[in-house]
């Protein structure tokens, strides 16, 4: 009796997706990416644009590593609702952030001092 129910408990507990090696791998990779980004920034070996691109790639790589190893997203069984929400979130964040940068830079670009002067003069009564 005792044995049977303990077997049942074992069979029905959620399969542990987390493992020690997973956390260690995630931790080591995260440290490598962090130090890499730090060294690339402090030792000015790359050109400005290359450095910016590299930093964004390193951050995305570390994001994926932590989502996989710490949040265990790849281990989900179907239907993968958590993954779906995550993908939606990433899309929303990209639209929000890149869209804001795009629009505000564009506004900035269009508002040259000349244009502003003309605009202000017009407001003053069309001289």
């Amino acid at each position: 009796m005792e044995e049977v129910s303990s077997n049942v408990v074992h069979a029905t507990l959620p399969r542990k997706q987390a493992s020690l090696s997973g956390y260690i791998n995630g931790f080591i990779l995260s440290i490598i990416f962090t130090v890499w980004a730090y060294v690339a920034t402090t030792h000015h070996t790359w050109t400005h644009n290359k450095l910016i691109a590299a930093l964004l790639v390193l951050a995305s790589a570390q994001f994926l590593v932590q989502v996989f190893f710490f949040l265990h997203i790849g281990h989900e069984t179907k239907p993968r609702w958590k993954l779906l929400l995550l993908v939606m979130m990433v899309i929303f964040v990209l639209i929000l952030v890149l869209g804001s940068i795009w629009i505000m830079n564009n506004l900035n670009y269009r508002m040259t001092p000349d244009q502003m002067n003309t605009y202000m003069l017009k407001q003053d009564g069309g001289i």
Partner: protein
Amino acid sequence: MSDIATNNAAVLAEQQTNDGKTLFGFWAYIMTDCLLFASLFATYAVLHGNTAGGESGRDLFSLPYILVETFALLTSSFTCGLAMLAANRHAKRQTALWLGITFALGLVFLVMELTEFGRLAREGNGWQRSGFLSSYFTLVGTHGLHITIGLVWMAALASRVWLKGFTRATLRRLSMFSLFWHFLDIVWIFIFTIVYMLGAA
């Protein structure tokens, strides 16, 4: 005998489904919290050049200091995972130990961040100084506020584990907490990269 076993299995399966729903709901909360951070990141990205004649991020931030801060939070995310592994084995002492280390590292991170805020404010670079600093303090401060809430939650959970052991509810809350803590570390990756590294690049 097999009736009882089947019954147990049914009850456990139902509890598991409910726990899964709770965890998924918490995941949905975290994903919407990301949108809060996204709007703050967007504000920062737009305003980071508007220093109103003051110093920019390149002159204000000390990168080695930020690196130490980052390691404290990253390591706490790792030890939080180790606490979860111990909790899954129902190892009370180990869980308490790893949670304690996670708490200490989180506290180190928070104190370092507040020290830096204090230094900036004393040097006349508070949030009222420029658009850049307003968006900086809002973004990093919101993350710090999340960390503070996480620390309070962690203390409550650790004492619960210590006093009551591993009930189903405690394990569920621990899983939710570890999601929250890992998520805060992920947000910090982007603060580290966008505010500090790109600011110095």
